[in-house]
């Protein structure tokens, strides 16, 4: 019996590897191509015969990109706005999601849907009211203003996803904590959040990526004199008559780097986290 179970497990492992290697190739191949293209001079990219590997690799694209007016600043602005957005969304989202997950009040279902409404309307049409609102509040072209716009759109995402994760944690654990003397807030911080770590980490990554790559609001709500962000810089390279493949792909590679870093830091949390003296066999 045990041997065949082993064999079945081995079979699944092999299958899993097959799936993963295949998917990995599918996912990574275009990224590798992007990186390779970023190492070529433009003349080597648009050629009659496709050049797979750069015959004359060069880092010129990266140098040119970084030296372009304002690019490092845009990078920094993106970092600031993304960090702020993640913090606010997590804080606001955890509290809201917990409430919606644990407590039953009359309009709960409708409230959940209400949160989604702002995402259900195409962003292009929401531009003007938000634009005007930020100008009136004096938050136009400020980190805080852009963060406000982002969190309005990303809070519903955090709430829905975090609620999904909170739903999978049994309330009995918090009751046990309260019997032991914890406040409700304490129960959240000490029981629920640690158990929901994978979900919180996943949400943080999601929010970070969405904020980092967001383009439309960044373009409309910032100016080059102010806090213009990185995605706008990338789009600026796509001209009416020009498309510098080398620069654009270099920009893409640079875009990924900080998020990869963030993900690497957060990666641990995504795994089965808590094993504080787990009671096992």
């Amino acid at each position, binding site marked *: 019996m045990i041997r065949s179970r082993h064999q079945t497990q081995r079979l699944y492992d092999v299958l899993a590897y097959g799936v993963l290697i295949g998917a*990995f190739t599918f996912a990574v191949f275009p990224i590798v191509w992007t990186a390779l293209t970023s190492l070529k001079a433009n003349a080597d990219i648009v050629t009659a015969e496709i050049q797979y590997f750069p015959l004359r690799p060069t880092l010129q694209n990266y140098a040119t990109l970084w030296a372009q007016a304002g690019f490092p600043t845009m990078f920094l602005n993106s970092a600031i706005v993304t960090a702020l957005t993640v913090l606010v969304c997590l804080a606001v989202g955890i509290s809201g999601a917990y409430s919606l997950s644990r407590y039953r009040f009359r309009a709960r279902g409708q409230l959940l849907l209400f949160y989604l409404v702002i995402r259900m309307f195409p962003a292009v049409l929401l531009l003007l009211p938000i634009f005007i609102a930020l100008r009136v509040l004096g938050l136009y072209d400020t980190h805080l203003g852009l963060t406000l716009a982002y969190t309005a759109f990303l809070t519903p995402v955090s709430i829905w996803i975090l609620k999904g994760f909170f739903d999978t944690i049994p309330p009995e654990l918090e009751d046990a904590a309260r019997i032991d003397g914890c406040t*409700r*807030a304490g129960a959240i911080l000490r029981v629920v959040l640690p158990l929901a770590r994978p979900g919180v980490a996943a949400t943080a990554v999601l929010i970070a990526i969405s904020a980092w*790559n967001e383009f439309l609001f960044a373009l409309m709500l910032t100016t080059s004199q102010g806090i213009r962000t990185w995605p706008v810089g990338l789009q600026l390279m*796509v001209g009416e008559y020009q498309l510098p493949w080398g620069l654009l792909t270099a920009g893409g590679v640079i875009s990924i780097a900080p998020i990869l870093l963030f993900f690497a830091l957060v990666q641990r949390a995504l795994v089965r986290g808590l094993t504080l003296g787990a009671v096992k066999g």
Partner: protein
Amino acid sequence: MRQAERIALPSEPVARPAWRLGDLSESNHWAYYLLLPSLLLVAMVAVYPVASGVWLSFQRYNLLRAPVPSFVGLAQYADLWIDSVFWVAARNTVVWVTVGAGSQFLLGLIIALALNRPRLRGIGLLRLGLLLPWLMPTVVAGHMWSLLLDSRLGVVNDVLVRLGLLQGYVAWFAQAETAMAAVLVVDLWKNFPFFTLLLLAGLQGVPDELYEAAEVDGANAWYRFWRITLPLLTPVIVASVILRVIGLVNAPDLMIILTHGGPGLATHVLSLLAFNNAYTGFNFGAAAAVATVMLVVLMVFTSAYVRVSGVTRE
């Protein structure tokens, strides 16, 4: 779900009122306090813009003709009803959303299940690589894929020809039959990590004991998946599917870069129609009408799906 795990807790009551948050959390209105920040934020920034957007759909407002909107009731909707382009876009949107969300969910789930196996080596690297497509900014991803699938310089074409799967280079985005499929492949590539990330986190929360108990009872893998994994994953599945469907309905970014609705009307979708109306035609009234249609359809879908899945029950 993780039962009987020992968690370090204070054995004595926490010293109050030194910790105000603790105090606050003991009040009868704790539930509302928790909700307040997010509700305020969303209400402040969401209600007016969406309401004004919907209101605009009942107006005629073309920036090129008149600086102020004028009320026309349902006239914009009547115009949409008789517009054949609207119906083509609606049909394409249905295909785009169902095949898109479905394929992304399935692929994301399969990969999450594979990544969830504890004994695999190199998991960290695999997981990182599988997330990369989602990290790439749309402007770069879109242009890179249009280059990859290019009929002159496209690496994908070259590889497929060398592998013998194709006779000659195919102009994927130029043929009506393949354009939608090509855009769906690019969207699949870009967005399956969204599902993988969330579903994997969800799977991590399912305790081993449940599986072990089921195995002892003689359940096979399929049973374990269907009766244990899926039900426990449902809240995460519902949330991620709803969010992705909303994203697919509303965001034309990738489509704009790859085909801009072409060739002909083969990849024209409602979000693109709204976008064109607003920012090429400056006809905000018409754009608002299309957007409101999308809003209503999404609300119906979301409420129905939430109800059917029972996520807000009890």
